[in-house]
């Protein structure tokens, strides 16, 4: 049953991906002109001789002599073969441009998510069980501050403080000398040393809102009769809390898993630019600005695939967690 469900969900993803690829392509096509027009115009403006022959060749090679539909087909059929297209800006395949950055993006996102959970869960539980205490107000204030202060501002503050008070530069995800170096222990050490600031900055908002939602959900659940039943059995209040209301309040949390990855990747772009992180975000912004359409399109496709996978994972987790969904999911009234 579970297997057939997953297969069905995977099959549904195919038309969804097709539609999102159309949307993404349409958005890419919306601004007038293309990369080559911009390139030639810029070259002429600066008085340089554009390599017109090369441009013509590239245009032909990448389908710019065809109509939009032809170009779309060119791009999509490439995607199907695992060819993510060519980045004109960097003059190398999009896959190689993204390469390392994808791994770093995932690393930053993963550590941020873990950081958010580790901080938010105890605080949310404490806030809910000690509602209206001074500590609850204080923690709530901190959480709201995390939500309210924009990431990039927080990043700037961090950079300023680190620079003025400690005299160090905190930008980037590693020491510049490791940038294009192969992976080594020293590089890993350097990454870990740089990681905490982006994690703290990007995670602040997520932590704040997770605290708020966990507190609200838990407060709802704590009023429920089954909590009283658990305590009437003689269960220790903390064990009762973990086994019953906390488990119930996890539903909202699990159903959010699908949104976490895309929101962190896309929400952190400004921060990534400010902190000059070697993640996908700044690359995407740049590609969009220079109309490097295959690079931008492929990154966007990848993100939408990630969110679909995330939603699938959260749906399966939700069904595993909650028997009501498992057994009653199909009933209609």
């Amino acid at each position: 049953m579970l297997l057939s469900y997953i297969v069905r969900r995977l099959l549904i993803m195919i038309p969804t991906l097709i539609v999102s690829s159309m949307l993404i392509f349409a958005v890419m096509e919306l601004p007038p002109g293309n990369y080559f027009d911009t390139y030639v115009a810029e070259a002429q403006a600066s008085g340089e001789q554009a390599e017109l022959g090369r441009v013509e060749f590239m245009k032909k090679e990448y389908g710019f002599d065809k109509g939009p539909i032809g170009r779309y087909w060119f791009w999509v059929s490439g995607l199907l073969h695992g060819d993510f297209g060519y980045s004109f800006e960097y003059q190398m395949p999009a896959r190689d441009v993204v390469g390392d950055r994808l791994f770093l993006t995932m690393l930053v996102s993963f550590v941020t998510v873990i950081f958010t959970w580790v901080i938010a869960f105890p605080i949310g539980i404490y806030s809910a069980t000690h509602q209206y205490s001074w500590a609850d107000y204080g923690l709530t204030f901190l959480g709201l501050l995390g939500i309210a202060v924009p990431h990039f501002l927080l990043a700037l503050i961090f950079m300023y403080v680190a620079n003025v008070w400690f005299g160090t530069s905190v930008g980037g995800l590693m020491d510049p000398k490791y940038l294009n170096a192969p992976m080594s222990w020293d590089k890993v050490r350097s990454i870990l040393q740089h990681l905490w600031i982006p994690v703290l900055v990007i995670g602040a908002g997520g932590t704040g809102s997770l605290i708020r939602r966990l507190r609200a959900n838990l407060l709802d659940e704590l009023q429920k009769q089954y909590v009283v039943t658990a305590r009437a059995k003689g269960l220790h209040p903390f064990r009762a809390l973990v086994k019953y209301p906390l488990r119930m309040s996890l539903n909202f949390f699990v159903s959010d898993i699908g949104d976490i990855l895309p929101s962190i990747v896309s929400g952190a772009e400004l921060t990534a630019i400010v902190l000059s992180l070697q993640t996908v975000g700044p690359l995407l912004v740049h590609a969009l600005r220079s109309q490097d359409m295959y690079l931008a399109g492929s990154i966007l496709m990848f993100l939408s695939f990630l969110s679909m996978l995330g939603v699938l994972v959260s749906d399966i987790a939700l069904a595993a967690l909650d028997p009501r969904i498992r057994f009653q999911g199909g009933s209609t009234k």
Partner: protein
Amino acid sequence: MFVDTHGSGFGPAPPEILRVEDLRIAFALHHVLGSARHNEVVKGASFRIPAGRTVALVGESGSGKSVISQAIMGLLPRVGAVTGGRILFHDPAKPKACVDLAALMRDGPEFRALRGGRIGMIFQEPMSSLSPVHTVGDQIEEALQLHQPVARAEARAKTEAMLRLVGFRDPQGGYDKYAFELSGGLRQRAMLAMALICRPALLIADEPTTALDVTIQAQVLKLMKDLQREIGMAILLITHDLGVVANMADEVVVIYHGEIMEAGTVEDIFRRPAHPYLKALLKATPRFDMDEGERLVSLRESGSMPMARKPERISDTRANVPAMLISAQSLRKVYHARRGGWLGRGKAIGIPAVDDVSLEIKRGECLGLVGESGCGKTTLSKIMMRAVTPDQGAITYCDGSEKTDVLALKGQPLRQFRRRMQLIFQDPVGSLSPRMTVLSLLREPLDIHGEAAGKQRVKDLMRAVGLDPRFLNRYPHSFSGGQRQRIGIARALALDPDIIVCDEPVSALDVSVQAQILNLLKDLQRDRGLTYLFISHNLAVVGYMADRIAVMARGRIVETAPRHELFRGPAHPYTKRLLNAVPFADLDHRLDFSSVTLASASDPSLWPPAFRDDGNRASLKDIDLGGGHYVLARENADARDLRP
């Protein structure tokens, strides 16, 4: 902490298991950051519970009866605290010791060992009392493992044995069931198993059967009696239902506004009620043997002003012979549900919620519709109101001159019809938007139908239901349950309808408030010439309100009769079972627990052959027993079989 038992002046056998002495409980009103004002809800209550006996604690909601039980269990809400007095628990297993529960740390190890181990508790709503994401077996076993830890396999065996004891026919399968897979009765049985698996000395049952159907209630009450004999525990039964008290209790304690009014044996209390409060409570409870025109006496007269509006209407309805107002022919509605496992598509199965139902309501009468939950009575009322479209059948509405096919109405004529028929809901909290003032609540139906909603008109409505028009600018949360139900009634009256569907209008209310609302509905019917379709699972309430009663089981109306006729001579086996299961607040008419069986009353295979359709629905017809008494039976059935 431990008190010498000899000084407390215990009487002879049976020994006391619990003694509450001058108990005072207060709630903090404003508890923002420590500054608190206190509200005393229990004011020096004293009573005792003898071992192995049942003591009923009777009172209205807000009287403090549940708070006392919470204090005994150490489960008071955080804002509540015991401010005085003692709760002495004398465990028969430890004859020498006596513990003052009020002095124990609420969540300390000593109290937790007693809670669930020596004192068990069950609650009103078995569905919400069980965790929806844990199996029943897991939750029951948890109680066992907390107090008498055993190996897993043994624990499971013990849990299954307990499930069998409380009446699960398949304990192995029941262990792995979730609460939402069980019926209401089985859920409460599972709760009993959880509370009793450690064989406690005291069971506290807080309104254990209030949320259950009358036949299920009888089963659960019988089960509690049987288990009490088996385990030898005492029961503290908290209820507002005097019928349950008369059938279950050995001793009764009556509480009112946090003070004990009266206490004694059940014989003393029912035969010689001394305190006026108890007398009033007995008078406010509807009974079957009430005379025509006899009124319930509500505890507090609400200042409802008798209405003198629309006299012309009364004359035109009462002058001629009652004519048919609305009638339904062969209504049928099937709901489709998918049953299946893991997120998959199970088989779609059709469940007929309303199955070939015909009925007719005359102008000015009150037709009662009775049946257990899930029998289709609410669906039927929704079809009559055109809120649900039936799969087949016809509804005819007749406003004196012309007949209307209700199901064919569309557009403007349908809007016009809607104002003829209004609804009063069961839940007075959920049916009023908390974001609207009473004024806008009452104006809304008028606005929808484009009528001038002058303030005078709304004020008249308020007076008609006995509310002060000055309350118009308040929000629903500042009203009590009974007052909210009055607002709901006023809203239903706003459009001057001909017929009002009352869907369980008093089942969420206390006995005393219930009497007020029922009397109000009766007065409104008389003054305004209203017609009611009155739906309830409470036979006594329907008996008080209705002229004729229709009994519904499994989507079909099995019996229709004038109310006295139905109570005097029920013909259908289902009606008989329903009537037999009603607990009377009368010591001379106690429930016959020996006749209560586990089987569902609406299971046709237990009915005599004359009432079974055996797969052929058409074989059953409404048989006329004379005097407006009809019963659904086989056409060729011997009239003597049908006669009670």
